[in-house]
C-alpha cells in the first residue's frame, strides 16, 4: 500500500486510482460489511420502518442519530487534521447547492412516500434481494425507471 500512496502523491489527476483493482476490491468489501450491518441491525426491515414512522420505538432514531453523530465527528476530525486519502487526494467534501430548495422539498417528499410504501431505501432494497426477498428486484427496476424519468424530465423541473 505504501508504494501506491507514494506514486499517487506524484499524480495530479484526481480520482485516477479509484478504479485500480485493489481499490475496487476494498469498496466491494466495504459494501459487503455495509450489507451485513444493514441486515443484522434490521434497518432493512419493513416492520422497523413502520415502527419508526408510527413513533413506536426509539430504535431507528437511535441508529440514524448515532450514525450521523459518528459521521459528523469523523468528518470534523478529517477536516481538522487535513487528512489525505490513501489514494493521495486531499479529502474535500463538495458542498451541495441549495438553489431554490424546491428539489430538496419535493424530491425529498417523493422519496419519503416511496420509503414508507416499500419499507426500504436504496441500500436496503439491494440488501433485501441478497437476504432472500427476490421480488425486490422489481422494486429496484422500478427505482431505475423512476430515476430515468427524472433524468428525462430534469430540464423542465424547478431546482
Amino acid at each position, binding site marked *: 500500500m505504501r508504494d501506491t500512496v507514494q506514486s499517487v502523491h506524484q499524480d495530479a489527476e*484526481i480520482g485516477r486510482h479509484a*478504479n485500480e483493482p485493489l481499490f*475496487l476490491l476494498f*469498496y466491494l468489501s*466495504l*459494501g459487503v460489511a*455495509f*450489507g*451485513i*450491518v*444493514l*441486515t443484522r441491525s434490521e*434497518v432493512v*426491515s419493513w*416492520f422497523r420502518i*413502520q*415502527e419508526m414512522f*408510527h413513533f413506536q*420505538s426509539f430504535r431507528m432514531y437511535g*441508529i*440514524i442519530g448515532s*450514525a*450521523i*453523530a459518528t459521521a*459528523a465527528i*469523523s*468528518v470534523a476530525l*478529517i477536516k481538522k487534521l487535513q487528512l489525505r*486519502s*490513501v489514494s493521495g*487526494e486531499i*479529502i*474535500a*467534501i463538495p458542498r451541495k447547492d*441549495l438553489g431554490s430548495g424546491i428539489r*430538496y*422539498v419535493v424530491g*425529498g*417528499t417523493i*422519496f419519503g412516500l*416511496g*420509503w*414508507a410504501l*416499500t*419499507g426500504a431505501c*436504496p*441500500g436496503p432494497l439491494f*440488501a433485501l*434481494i441478497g*437476504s432472500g*426477498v427476490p421480488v425486490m428486484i422489481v*422494486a429496484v427496476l*422500478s*427505482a*431505475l425507471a*423512476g*430515476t*430515468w424519468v*427524472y433524468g428525462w424530465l*430534469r430540464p423542465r423541473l424547478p431546482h
Partner: protein
Amino acid sequence: MMEWIRGEWPWYVAGPLIGLFVPALLIAGNKLFGISSNLRHLCAALVPGRVAFFRYDWKRTGLWNLFFLAGVLVGGLIASHLGAAHDVAISAQSKESLVRLGIHDFSGLVPRELFRWQMLLTLRGFVSIIVGGFLVGLGTAYAGGCTSGHAISGLANFELPSLIAVLGFFAGGLAATYLILPFLLRGI
C-alpha cells in the same frame, strides 16, 4: 461473540458502525458515502438514451460505488446465513397496530404476505413494490440523495439542503404511513 453476531444488534452498535462508512470511504479514496447515485450510474450504464443526465463517464465517477453496491447485495446474502431466522422484535404496540392493518406474518424481515411475486398482480403489492420503488428512484434522483447521502453524509457535514431533504423524507414517509398504507393494507 458468535452469539452476539447472531442476535439483534442494539442501536448503539448498529448506528456508529453505519456512521463509520463515511470516514472509511473518505479516507480510502475521497469518496462520499451515498447509495442512490448508483441508480443514476446504472441508468447511465444500461439505458442512457439521449438524456443528458445519463451522458457522462459513469465508469470514472461511479464504478467504485457500483462495486460498493454489489457488496451490499452480497452482504445481505451473508447476513441472512449468519443467524437463525427470527421475528423482527418490533414493539408489542407496533405489532398490534400492524395486525389491525391486516398483517399476520411476522416471520421475516418484511411481511411475506405482501412481498411475494404473486402480490405484484394485486393493488397492495403493485403499490408497495412497483409504485413505491418508482417513487424511491424518482425522489432520490430529484433530491440528489437518499438516507445515506443526505441524512448521514449530508447532515454530518451540516448541509442545509440535506436537512431540508431529510424533513421531506419524513413528511413523505408519514403521509404514506397514515394516509395511504391503512387503506392499502386493509384486508390482506
